[in-house]
């Protein structure tokens, strides 16, 4: 019983949130890793691309709500998301056309792309703040919970409840669907295969008749879709704030690098590694321990390895460790 209570407590505060957060990071890291695999640079604008797509989704959500369109128990944002993806893809393609294409034609150094992406980040950030403002936006509607802590307690008779927010459930399910679709696309479709080939050996892809412009455009569209989905899910789960999305860059990059830049499977694994580490290291274990040891052994402190204020330090330390030990990532960055 006590053990079960401890497990319930851990599930509620570690397992469930980490699964949701990990899914969001995985989707974000997939976008970064795809762009890296094809265009060979780390896109610093990705966090703000997420913010852009999410912003459009929010605007459409508000519009739908004002027209009385709802999805029943599900958040209206799911209905708005396709529009977010559409606008985000158009925006990202425009940045490629106006910014990156020039450097591609000159075969510029990757670090130049990096700086250009910083410029794009700035502009995107400005656009988002200009349109929707720098403040928190809550746009989740519909049911809040799949299962509430109280219901869980009644159901199981435990004194610790596990609550699962609807947004968390949606996040994990969406992640599975998106990843399945993405891998089907990369491995089975002509366009997907041409992307993998291009990422593997650009020059030979040209010699096989693959059109590089097409590959690049598909990559950007996928990245925009992944960014919008990741951003919307994160916003539903927590809230939307442009600056938070900029800050997500670090865990997302850490996830992508841990998994091996350019490797989609690695990005997913990396997302969960980062999310679980972050949440496990910043969780206070005092109550869990209280269930497991006799009363007078319970320590005074919170038994928290690191305060949540330093959650970014977790991504950072993992990143440095991986760079020290295996610079190519756990899964070795081999390309898309």
């Amino acid at each position, binding site marked *: 019983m006590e053990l079960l209570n401890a497990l319930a407590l851990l599930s509620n505060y570690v397992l469930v949130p980490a699964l949701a957060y990990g899914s969001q990071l995985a989707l974000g890291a997939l976008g970064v890793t795809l762009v890296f695999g094809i265009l060979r640079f780390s896109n610093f604008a990705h966090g703000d691309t997420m913010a852009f797509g999410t912003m459009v989704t929010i605007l459409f959500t508000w519009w739908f709500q004002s027209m009385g369109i709802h999805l029943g128990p599900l958040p209206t944002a799911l209905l708005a998301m396709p529009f977010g993806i559409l606008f985000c893809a158009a925006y990202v393609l425009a940045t490629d056309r106006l910014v990156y294409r020039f450097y591609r034609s000159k075969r510029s150094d990757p670090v130049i792309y990096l700086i250009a992406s910083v410029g794009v980040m700035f502009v995107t950030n400005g656009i988002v703040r200009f349109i929707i403002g720098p403040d928190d936006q809550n746009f989740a509607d519909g049911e809040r919970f799949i299962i509430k802590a109280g219901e869980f307690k009644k159901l199981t008779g435990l004194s610790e409840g596990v609550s699962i927010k609807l947004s968390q459930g949606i996040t994990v399910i969406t992640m599975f669907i998106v990843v399945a679709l993405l891998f089907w696309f990369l491995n089975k479709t002509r366009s997907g295969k041409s992307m993998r*080939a291009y990422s*593997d050996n650009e*020059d030979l892809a040209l010699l096989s008749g693959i059109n590089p412009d097409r590959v690049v455009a598909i990559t950007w569209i996928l990245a925009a879709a992944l960014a919008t989905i990741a951003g919307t899910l994160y916003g539903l789960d927590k809230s939307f704030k442009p600056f938070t999305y900029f800050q997500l860059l670090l865990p997302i990059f850490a996830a992508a690098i841990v998994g091996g830049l350019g490797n989609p499977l690695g990005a997913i694994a990396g997302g969960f590694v980062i999310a679980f580490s972050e949440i496990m290291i910043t969780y206070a274990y005092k109550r869990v321990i209280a269930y497991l040891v006799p009363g007078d052994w319970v320590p005074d402190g919170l038994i928290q390895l690191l305060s949540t204020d330093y959650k970014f330090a977790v991504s950072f330390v993992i990143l440095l460790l991986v760079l020290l030990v295996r610079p190519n990532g756990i899964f070795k960055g081999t390309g898309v």
Partner: protein
Amino acid sequence: MSFLLAQGMTGGYGSVDILHDCTIAVEAGEIAVIVGPNGAGKSTAMKAVFGMLDIHSGSVILDGEDITALSPQDRVAKGMAFVPQTNNVFPSMSVEQNLEMGAFLRRDDINKTMEEVYELFPILREKRRQNAGELSGGQRQQVAVGRALMTQPKLLMLDEPTAGVSPIVMDELFDLIIDIARTGLPILMVEQNARQALNIADKGYVLVQGRNRFTDTGQALMNDPEVRKSFLGG
């Protein structure tokens, strides 16, 4: 009229020209070989023929059609296939996927061609699920040539297909190339092993510093004392 005629090509990678008024032709059903010292511009000439670098004068005519202005992809569609000297496979894709990528532009059934490639290179059938990056040098060259054949090309261009393989494998590769040529496919090939290459060549070009130095039939070049002395080691 030659099947391929690349005439008076001048150009290079940047401001400096590597090729100077270089001319290369391949007749229908024949093997043409380019030989020459390292850095002579052999690979550059191949790339120029394939449209991978800008030439500011000269023209490339394939089967009577001027293709000078076409991009490499468009040349693939016109029936040219090129196996570059290095990085000529997709390392993290399986052998079969490599072959598939070769047929990227084809919309018809590719299984028959793949079957033909497997007949030609039986070892590839065995390894078809393995990643190309994990194969030995000789096998990788076979994948590379196989990938090129998948386009059902009208002209096959090979840049040093025998580089970095053991002498035994090299002989095998030469035999395979002859087999391919027997099917009537014209081949333009760059080779380090000038003697062996000229032996099977209908036409030979000796390139030095980006210029045509000698041009003749393979046999005639083999017999030319000057060519022997400077390029075939006596």
